[in-house]
């Protein structure tokens, strides 16, 4: 879509454009691909604040807007806290919004992020995953995004630039659905997704217009909609539990809405994804890696190599961390003898001193009929794992199947020195 500076495109002009570009291929980084999704979604208000590695999205959006490629208010905020407050309030007025952050930026905004979930505003944001300070570290860890696992945000994890684009579009569809009305973070691993260029097929805008209806928030904060009072202070005994239950139900509803949305996405845009978990070599797997994000590709490659050595390895990639796909995981892992989390998170002092990712997985798998051996392969601190690390994880899982238990449940795979 080309819009000359000075003209005022309407929301409609996106969907009724008669001259459409044919399906095309681009070589884009994850950040560039997400910017394209935001443009196609005809977002109205964007709030930006810089922190690596997500920043490139905002750079690209600012350039698109400066060049008249689409129209939105882009606010350069004074902090991440303001950034998330800005989009929360714009969303309450009825604007479709976009926001994002990384690492300690996402933690600086914590208060604003929490209230956005609990006040049920369908903000869509990106977290470009990055290690938390101190010390400053450009490496990739998941703790920044995982911090928001409890407060009413949907959290999904993209594997590459293409999926980051698709998932961002689907995020608007799911979040804005009246059965849900919850915000969503699309997590994209720092460097491996944010900064690595790969082949991306941007969807055709007409197809997306059919897939993604206009944002219509009930009870907008607009004088035209009457005197709506929103988030008034309450007496806990009066509606405290009921308000929380509304959020709980919305999150439960999201499971069905997510399934519908990905079905529709395949129908309109033509790209198919399994909604909650993606399975590789799982039909006859004896051991399995469970992970999220970009390194799942390495895990699949490792599984293939392990299979060539006679070890029946499979991979499960989790696409939605919230709502967490417990049932799908239990079903897919039934009969697997040893399961290893490829875990880019920590949770110091947690149960068995394991990662946050692992403990969530373990808690979901407790209800399984078979009792597989569970191991946590921690890959924290931002040091990049190599194929050798994944192969070692595979061998340790294989050993566990023979022993019927693991010698050590939690292992820091990329650590140098003693794993005490």
């Amino acid at each position, binding site marked *: 879509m080309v819009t000359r500076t000075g003209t005022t495109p309407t929301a409609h002009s996106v969907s009724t454009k008669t001259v459409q570009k044919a399906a095309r291929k681009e070589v884009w980084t994850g950040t560039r691909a997400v910017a394209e999704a935001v443009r196609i979604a005809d977002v109205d208000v964007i709030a930006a604040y810089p922190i690596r590695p997500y920043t490139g999205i905002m750079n690209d959006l600012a350039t698109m807007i400066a060049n008249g490629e689409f129209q939105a208010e882009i606010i350069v905020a004074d902090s991440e806290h*303001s950034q998330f407050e*800005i989009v*929360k*309030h714009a969303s309450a*007025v009825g604007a479709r919004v976009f926001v994002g952050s990384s690492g300690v930026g996402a933690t600086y905004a914590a208060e604003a992020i929490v209230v956005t979930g609990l006040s049920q505003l369908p903000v869509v944001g990106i977290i470009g995953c990055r290690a938390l300070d101190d010390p400053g570290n450009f490496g990739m860890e998941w703790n920044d995004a995982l911090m928001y696992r409890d407060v009413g945000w949907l959290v999904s994890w993209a594997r590459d630039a293409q999926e980051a684009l698709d998932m961002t579009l689907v995020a608007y569809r799911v979040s804005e659905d009246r059965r849900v009305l919850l915000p969503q973070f699309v997590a994209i691993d720092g460097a491996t997704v944010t900064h690595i260029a790969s082949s991306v097929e941007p969807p055709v805008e007409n197809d997306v217009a059919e897939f993604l209806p206009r944002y219509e928030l009930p009870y907008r904060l*607009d004088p035209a*909609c009457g005197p709506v009072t929103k988030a008034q202070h309450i007496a806990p005994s009066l509606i405290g539990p009921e308000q929380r239950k509304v959020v709980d139900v919305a999150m439960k509803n999201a499971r069905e809405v997510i399934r519908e949305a990905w079905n529709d996405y395949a129908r309109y845009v033509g790209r198919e994804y399994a909604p909650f978990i993606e399975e590789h070599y799982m039909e006859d797997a004896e051991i399995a890696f469970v992970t999220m994000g970009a390194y799942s590709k390495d895990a699949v490659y490792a599984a293939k190599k392990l299979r060539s050595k006679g070890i029946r390895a499979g991979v499960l990639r989790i696409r939605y961390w919230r709502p967490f796909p417990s049932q799908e995981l239990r079903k897919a892992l039934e009969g697997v003898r040893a399961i290893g989390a490829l875990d880019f998170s920590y949770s110091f002092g947690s149960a068995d001193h394991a990662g946050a990712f692992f403990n969530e997985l373990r808690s979901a798998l407790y209800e399984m009929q078979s009792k597989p051996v569970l191991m946590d392969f921690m890959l924290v601190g931002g040091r990049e794992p190599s194929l050798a690390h994944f192969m070692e994880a595979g061998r340790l899982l294989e050993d566990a199947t023979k022993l019927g238990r693991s010698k050590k449940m939690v292992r820091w795979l990329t650590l140098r020195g003693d794993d005490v």
Partner: protein
Amino acid sequence: MTNTSAPFRSVKDIPAEEYYRSGHRTCAGCGPAIAYRLLTKVAGPNTVLLGPTGCMYVANGHQFLTSPYAVPWFHTQLGGGGAAGIGTAAAFRALMMKGKRRMEDINVVVYGGDGGFSDIGYSGLSMAMTYDYSRLVYVLYDNESYANTGIQASSATPWGATTTFTPSGKVRKLGNERSKKNVALTLAAHPGVKYVATSSLYPPLDFMNKVRRALEADGPAFIHVLTPCPKGWFFEPKETVDLSRLAVETGSWLLWEYDSGEFALTHRASPRKHAREYIRRQGRFSHLTDDEVETIDRMIEEEKKYWEESDRLKRLVLPWIRPPPRTSVVSH
């Protein structure tokens, strides 16, 4: 796009319609509630109100799910006032410019306390002053403490006042040892700012006319309104407006406006009453010695010269006054 309305010249000009109504449970004699009522009368029905956490959040709702607001209202976090206004105004502008909503003037008013605007939300408020949304007005209702949490000092608490965080003790006797931050002055320093003013509940109509000017300023606008607090300042609820008057008549609170780069004192206390007439009416200053009250009066007198000079020049001159004597455990 901005219409200029007639100023309020007498109480008869005040609209009868109420947009901040019954259904709140503020303290008897609450200054911020009085200002809220007046402000909403000026802004009228085509208004969105945003309320950072503070007295005007917590005391305006609570027990029975009541709402005093006859216009749209949304909470924002204690430090979120600046951003909330920008987000709301940006949404209206985007939706209107993109043809998704009918074009019209909508007032966005953020009503935040001194904690929300002089401390935790100061950065966001400063950001807001750098954007050019019209009909977006920030009003700081200043009761000179974090009052709804039980009267803790903010950076807008005056020198010598006791609060629960700055009590007058046996060794540290003074109470608050910091001087009050002049928020309006710092916001006037933002290059694009259109309208900055200070106000109080006295003289009558001063605040309403300033709200009117701010809404029509066509750019960043801020009003710092001193709103006495019976609970935090320790005076009888019936004296709220009297205290506003005394704050102005003693020069403890100066009324001015800075309109598109032009400064003017909007009210002169002449002859100025001695500070003690204001100070001695409030329990929060009851521990002060006569010497300390004299120090306050001396500081008012010194600062006044700068404001007079600003008024003469129609430009802001940065005031500087000799600080109060350094307080220490030894000297007290």
